[in-house]
């Protein structure tokens, strides 16, 4: 369960005060498939980064699985990200010089998991995603879909309960966008993880449990399907 209460984030850019997130309150139940939409500069990425513990709010609280992450220090927050959050970045951000297995292993290194167990867990997950023949391939030797599967495996390898995807279909055509959304939905159902996607792409709307539309850092209540469902 993610609870957001009176969340505000302000940036000062060139002396100008920009309210990226403006007093947002929101509850996201476990296992939901949530889409955050909105035009550029609406604060959707900032909101996702705060939920993922990459940024700290100026005001308000974010409670994830009972932990108020706005009160955590760097070490605790890093531990929180490592154990609870899986990020899927635009273009996947895989380490080009590492193999698929090494990329998936990476979060486990920062958990201090022994090498043997690390490899086993990463290998099992990659095999589940049908990547058993690509374990030792580098990203440059993989297709877009394969890279996506590696990125998802990396996000899930530490049994994260929340998957955050920032513009996962940013540079992808419609056909591939549908494939990505399908696979994320499948992950959401199969692994019972909360999936939060930040996107411009309206195609996601059809697949989402809930959609939040942000505008100028505020939730556009009319399009807040999630609230309606609740």
């Amino acid at each position: 369960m993610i609870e957001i209460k009176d969340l505000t984030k302000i940036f000062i850019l060139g002396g100008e005060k920009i309210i990226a997130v403006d007093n947002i309150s929101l509850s996201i139940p476990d296992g939901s498939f949530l889409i955050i939409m909105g035009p550029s500069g609406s604060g959707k990425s900032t909101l996702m980064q705060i939920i993922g513990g990459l940024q700290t709010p100026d005001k308000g609280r974010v409670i994830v699985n009972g932990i108020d992450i706005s009160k955590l220090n760097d070490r605790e927050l890093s531990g929180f990200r490592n154990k609870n959050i899986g990020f899927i970045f635009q273009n996947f951000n895989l380490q080009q010089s590492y193999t698929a297995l090494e990329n998936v292993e990476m979060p486990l290194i920062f958990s201090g998991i022994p090498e043997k167990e690390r490899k086993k867990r990463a290998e099992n997950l990659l095999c589940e995603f049908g990547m058993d023949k690509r374990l030792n391939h580098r990203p440059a030797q993989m297709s877009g879909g394969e890279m996506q599967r590696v990125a998802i495996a990396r996000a899930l390898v530490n049994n994260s309960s929340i998957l955050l995807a920032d513009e996962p279909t940013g540079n992808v055509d419609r056909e591939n966008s549908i494939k990505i959304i399908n696979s994320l939905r499948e992950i959401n159902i199969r692994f019972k993880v909360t999936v939060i996607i930040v996107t411009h792409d309206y195609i996601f709307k059809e697949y989402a449990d809930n959609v939040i539309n942000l505008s100028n850092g505020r939730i556009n209540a009319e399009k807040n399907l999630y609230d309606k469902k609740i």
Partner: protein
Amino acid sequence: MIKRSDLFILALKKLKIRKLRVFFTLVISALGIIIISAGIGLIKGVVNQDILDYFPLPPPDTVIIKGYNLPEKEFGEKPDINKTEDSLIEHYITDEHLKIIKNHKYYKDIIKPVTSYSSLVIDSLLSWSYFASDFCGYPDTFIRHYAGKNYEKYITNANLIPVIINENLVQSIYYPDSNTIEKITDYSKFLGKKVNIIAGDIIKNELYFAIYTRDTSGFFTRIPIDENGWKESTKWIIDRYRYKYDMNILNQTLNLKGVIIGSIPMNSGNIIPLEILKKCGDWIRTRNRLAALNDNALDDLYSYTWAYNEMSNYEVLTEKNKALEYCEYLKKFKITADCREKMKEEKFKRIKDQLKLVKIILYSVSGIVLFFSGMFIWGTIGRVVNDSRREIGVFRAIGATKIDILKIYLTEAGILGMLSSVLGIMFGQLIAFSLSKFILYYLNKEGAEKLPESLYGIDYYGLLILFFASIAISLLAGFQPALKASKLDPVIALKTE
């Protein structure tokens, strides 16, 4: 929190990605360390030399004064006139100082020349030495005179007899408890390989071909050895000292194969080369002939009585006031009891000071070189951090703490420092070794009379300092970019193109 072993592997992996840059960093950093390491090796090699071989002792006509009631440390000190004969002490002075001593009004009272040997005043000054060497046969001064700069080597302790089985040194005998095979090995190094052991009294021109040894009760026993007697002598020695020998050796046929050219004068503790002994013997025989012209000449110059009588001439500082005044006088000229030793020490000190200066210069250059190495590592790590901003962002997003990031880049710097240090030290030592060989080869070709075995030495302490200093500098150099990496905002880092 990342584990230490993973940290190391991760840092290595990251370095492996930037092979070319890492290679250049290593080469440049190692170059500096090579220079320092080679310098350390050569300096150590020079320090290792027996410097006296190249910088001779004070002039060979340095004399020794020995006598009672002279103050123990300095002439200038108050003499302890209550001291017994047992407090006999030695004073080493140079010719120059001797002149000063002679100029003093009390000189004749203090150092009475032996009237019967009036033509040999200087010799009389040596009488103590002569007495001391009565059993040995030769005054230290003359051995030094004839042996010249090799003197130090010739007075090597020789209270031992090498037992060689099939040309392998087995054990030394004489003072079996105190001598070791290493000492014998030293002899063989400078005395050559094939010889007889010759013992005897060179002054009397009698070479007995005997080994003088001391039995368990402390008495001297002469073991006659002739050309056919080696086997018997060997047996005697082994019977005598069988408790010292390994049973395996006992069961073998032993052959004594002497390796020493020279003589072991009785009780001298010295192995003295034959040629030098003969010269000493000639000199002493001449001196004796001159002495014999005098009515009071003693018949037996080697008798204890004679030596004791002569010695008595030096019990001179019996008048307290004179002694004190004399000491004051000597003090003005800074004549100290051990001034000859001091001269040697000062010479050593000068050489060491010069080497110290060379070391300081080397260390200063090293400092500059290490500084530039550090700068290069700083640049490399800085560049690596800049190139991997996105990677840092991903690491932070998947759970790396700021400290983890700092550690990763510090480890990279440390690995660079360690590798360059190891490579630099290894190549530096190799270069120093080769340079030493080359210089000696060149000097040998140029006809140098005497050359050391090597100009290269391993200064473990210096190399250890260099190793750790290099790593420390690398860590220091890597700290700023590593800190910068750790402070990167993950959101901004992830946006890096």
